[in-house]
């Protein structure tokens, strides 16, 4: 599929179509630097002086490149699709190659981050268990109550995507219920591998 950019986005990138290959490479490097370290006005000013354009134009250019990268990752563009998409912006074939290299170099990293960003509910992280038997209590001196104490650890992605927040839940259950929940969850797992589920998966992927 092709992506179509907003008009102001197109305008921002328009500056680059007229520049040499070397300048484009430098801009790509600046965009990568932006992704890693945030904006660097000093570099942008020198670039603006060299090209004798406004600082704003340079900044917009950088933002435009980063946005292009994000959009491409969001739609998981293939090489041909990516090239066709930027062809409409007026980039020459050499420039397309450079931009594609830029896209390829950051694609996996960006894709990973944006998928994680979308899901912010708690995920299963780890489970530890301990088998215990309650043999006596103040209210009943002799008893046998087998229990399974569980330490369920859940992780939730932080808002800025920088890492996980972990949460420990202490739970317990008895042997009979343990067997039941194990069987239920195994059923879920088997169901997800059934032919029916795989068919749905294939239908969704195509």
């Amino acid at each position: 599929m092709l992506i179509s950019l907003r008009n102001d986005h197109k305008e921002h990138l328009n500056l680059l179509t007229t520049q040499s290959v070397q300048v484009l490479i430098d801009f790509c490097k600046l965009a990568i630097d932006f992704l890693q370290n945030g904006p660097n006005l000093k570099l942008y000013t020198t670039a603006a002086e060299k090209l004798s354009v406004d600082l704003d134009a340079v900044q917009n250019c950088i933002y435009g490149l980063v946005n292009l990268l994000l959009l491409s990752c969001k739609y998981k563009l293939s090489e041909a699709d990516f090239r066709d998409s930027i062809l409409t912006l007026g980039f020459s074939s050499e420039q397309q190659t450079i931009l594609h290299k830029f896209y390829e170099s950051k694609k996996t990293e960006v894709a990973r981050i944006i998928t994680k960003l979308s899901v912010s509910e708690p995920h299963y992280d780890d489970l530890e268990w301990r088998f215990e038997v309650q043999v006596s209590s103040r209210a009943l001196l002799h008893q046998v109550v087998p229990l399974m104490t569980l330490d369920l650890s859940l992780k939730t992605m932080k808002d800025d995507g920088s890492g996980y927040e972990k949460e420990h839940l202490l739970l317990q259950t008895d042997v009979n219920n343990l067997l039941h929940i194990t069987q239920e969850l195994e059923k879920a797992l088997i169901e997800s591998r059934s032919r029916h589920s795989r068919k749905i998966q294939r239908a969704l992927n195509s």
Partner: protein
Amino acid sequence: MKFDENIKKSLNLANNATAVTDATFKGLLENCFSVLTGLPEPHNVTNLYNSKPDLVKELYAALLSITAEFVRSGQKSDSIRDFLNKCGYNEAKISFYTDLYDRNREEIEGSLINVGSHLPHITDVTWKIDYIIKSSCVDASEGPLFRIGLQTEKYNSEIGGKKVELVNFTCDSQELQDLVYKLKDAVRHCQRIGSEH
């Protein structure tokens, strides 16, 4: 099993045949075991008072106390027989008591185990499989995702009873595989314990 001398004196009141008839004694015992197992009293105690309400109240309290203590310390009916014998009870009373005791002991043990604090107890699980077709961030399908809810129960003092709560979380295939693997490990451990001779 050690009791206060006072409680023995209170138990002795049952031997006062005028104030406590056999029917009264039986009624009190039936009430006693019924209450301790958490059921309503089958007889209205006021109907058992006869002429001496204070005696009956005292005897009732003493019977409840010793029964609770017998079950707590896990007494067998023959040692109870000895104890009641020392309190001067006749054979009919003793066998009536031990009979009820043997029948209700397990249920009262259950009531006693229900005294204490526990972690939230997992009693059930719900699951569903989701496939993400599209989201605001990514235009690609993803899945299967398992939405899992562990149903837990815990005593809540505000309600005065059990409160059911769901612990919800999500797993992808790999994570669920890991969870199931660990749970199965625990189940296997239990099976090994259960199969040892």
